[in-house]
């Protein structure tokens, strides 16, 4: 793993914000059926006109 470039004091402030968010998401994810697909698959069709610029 690459060494984190985020200063320690910043990491301490991130935990109380990010950890509860990740915990809620993981609780939701546990309810997903194994075959549940990703939204990214269907979003691809919406960007068909991207011309790379």
């Amino acid at each position, binding site marked *: 793993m690459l060494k*984190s*470039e*985020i200063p320690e004091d*910043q*990491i301490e*402030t*991130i935990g109380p*914000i*990010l950890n509860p*968010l*990740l915990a*809620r*998401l*993981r609780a*939701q*994810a546990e309810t*997903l059926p194994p075959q*549940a*697909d*990703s*939204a*990214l*698959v*269907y*979003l691809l*069709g*919406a*960007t*068909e*006109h*991207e*011309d*790379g*610029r």
Partner: protein
Amino acid sequence: MTILEAGQALRSRRVSCLELTDHCLDQIAKLNPRLNAFITVTEESARAHAQALDRELANGRDRGPLHGIPIAHKDLISTKDVRTTSGSKLFRDHVPTVDAPIVEKLTAAGAVMLGKTGLHELAYGVTSDNPHFGTIRNPRAPSRTPGGSSGGSGVAVATGMAFLATGTDTGGSIRIPASFCGVVGLKPTYGLVNRSGIQPLGLSLDHIGPLTRTVADAGVALAAMLDNAARLRPAPGSCQYIRIGLPENFYFTHIVSEVRDAVQKAAQTAERFGVRVTQVKVPDIDALNDVGRIILLAEASALYQPYFSRREDFGADVLALLDQGRLVPATDYINAQRIRKMLVSEFCALFSTIDCLLTPTTPTTAPLIGQKQVELDGEMVDTRLATTRLVRGVNVLGFPALSMPCGQSAEGLPIGVQMIARPFEEHLLLVLGEALELELSRTTRPS
């Protein structure tokens, strides 16, 4: 004056394109030093372009409803030979060599670009309090935020500095300034408007759309922005066929009473002109918002990874979010995209019984500049999370949403109502919005 009224005045020779442009430039000269809506004003090229468009009209060439209409572009949309900063120190001197397709299309439709509007740094925030280009102020109350990230666009349209301004919306960034500034903001269906040449933030959440003074003007703007209008579903024949769902959960809790009352009054007003309004239970919006936050944190940090060594070039709030995003595991990002698909299915099921969901746009009117928390139902809530609470989820769904004024607070601050429809049903939102705007104007003058 609206775009449609200006068009009539142009075609009856009561005003010229140059006079419209000069009027807007005068407004910018008068108000921008105080409100800071524009980062760059392209006065010389705007006047030259307006004169060329006057000559075209005189010679019988009419490009349509945007011919000669002065507009502004959010300063993360590429404009050839005009600096495009994205509100960031990283791109302070960036001068694109080509126009973004949306700029090409609006220019081809006859719009006159007046300049580039300010924004929250990298469009990653809702206050437009920018550490590199200054604080943008709400025209109704300059001690208050105009919202963001498209704050300069909201201010420009609200004050008559421009008839139309482009915006981007990744978690509410068109609809929030529309709500706080008292203008109309349309976030089209995901992917409907070409986002090439526009600085991204959240690749699967970014949307492009207009801010205007009226709903009809938003329709004119959207028509000019589209690559393929055939993707849109036809407008309903009459408002009487539209079924509005009024949420009985989530959207009317944790909001200030003035906002709740104004939006419920808007629903009652819609009923008066024949729309059917029913109470509905909406799927889990808290989960939808969590999914949206995880996806945006990860996608924004992935985009800005090449710049992480330049920590001093980011404002504190944006840097904090980028650091948070770097600590989101890939597994959680992927699961957020899986939950997203499930929630989209739940909303599609809800929309089999209604055509439109009617909600407040923001739970409060514009907070004070620098205000860290707002009080909602006796509880202090982080201003950014409160302000995005009712709009962020729509970006996760990718559905179109329109915000329009529906009243004002006792302090005279605008209140916005949000209408959400099925994908590609922008015409339904515009028909409903126009009817509501007309009916509300009989009792309220929002702008």
